[in-house]
């Protein structure tokens, strides 16, 4: 498995109110190919100023605050060590975060040439 969720139970209750703001668990898709993990998260109402993505290996933490401060979206995953922390790209468009997490060079699959003997 490429990723594991931290605090697995927390997402069962998707919105809870505390101290005037609402805490929410965003819905997430995670895909993988040879080059990267690709994470998509629904963060409606969040603009780039309100978004924080932290990768403190192995923990990836996403936090998005809506512009009107009504809802704070938080989610954390434990990624395995194959991700290059210096090669993460994030885009936020139409309320969806796309996070490209490139694999470290040494973990990309390599083709081994087979010679005839």
């Amino acid at each position: 498995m490429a990723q594991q969720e931290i605090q697995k139970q927390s997402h069962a209750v998707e919105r809870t109110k505390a101290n005037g703001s609402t805490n929410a668990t965003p819905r997430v898709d995670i895909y993988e190919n040879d080059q990267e993990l690709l994470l998509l998260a629904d963060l409606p109402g969040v603009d780039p100023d309100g978004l924080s993505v932290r990768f403190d290996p192995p923990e990836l933490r996403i936090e998005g605050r809506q512009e009107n401060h009504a809802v704070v979206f938080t989610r954390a995953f434990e990624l395995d060590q194959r991700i290059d922390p210096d090669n993460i790209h994030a885009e936020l468009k139409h309320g969806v975060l796309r996070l490209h997490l490139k694999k470290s060079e040494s973990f990309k699959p390599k083709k081994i040439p087979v010679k005839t003997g």
Partner: protein
Amino acid sequence: MLARWKEWRDWDDLGLGRFGRPFAGLDELRREMDSLLSDFEREGVPARWQAGLWPRLELNDEGKWLLLQAELPGVTEKELDVTVTADTLTVRGTRKDEVPGGYSVHRRERPAVEFARSITLPCRIDAERAEATMKNGVLSLRLPKAAEAQPKQITVKAS
């Protein structure tokens, strides 16, 4: 994870207050317990997405107008259709499938969805002057109240 959109049957769940519902807290607890339990049983596409409870809506009375906000992450204005009459509002559209080609799937909680939600508004509005904007995946609708529904100031005279 799979139960973000609670079932909204009552006005109080649309942000209009909890007056007259002394056991609303218990209802909420029950719903959360249900969703906790069903999380264990459910796999794949969450049933509530198919049951017409997406998108999440919030309706607020701002005095001279109603403000309705719908969370539509991943939906652009081209894929969205909003219609209003004097007292109903309908939001319908599609969110396209975003599964990228050549990737394997580890986790999928955001399926493509075709949605349509209609609500009856709590007062009559002036549909001609309704305004809709889309920003960061949130649809905001400003619905000016009809003249007869406008709040009126009542002067209190000293007797």
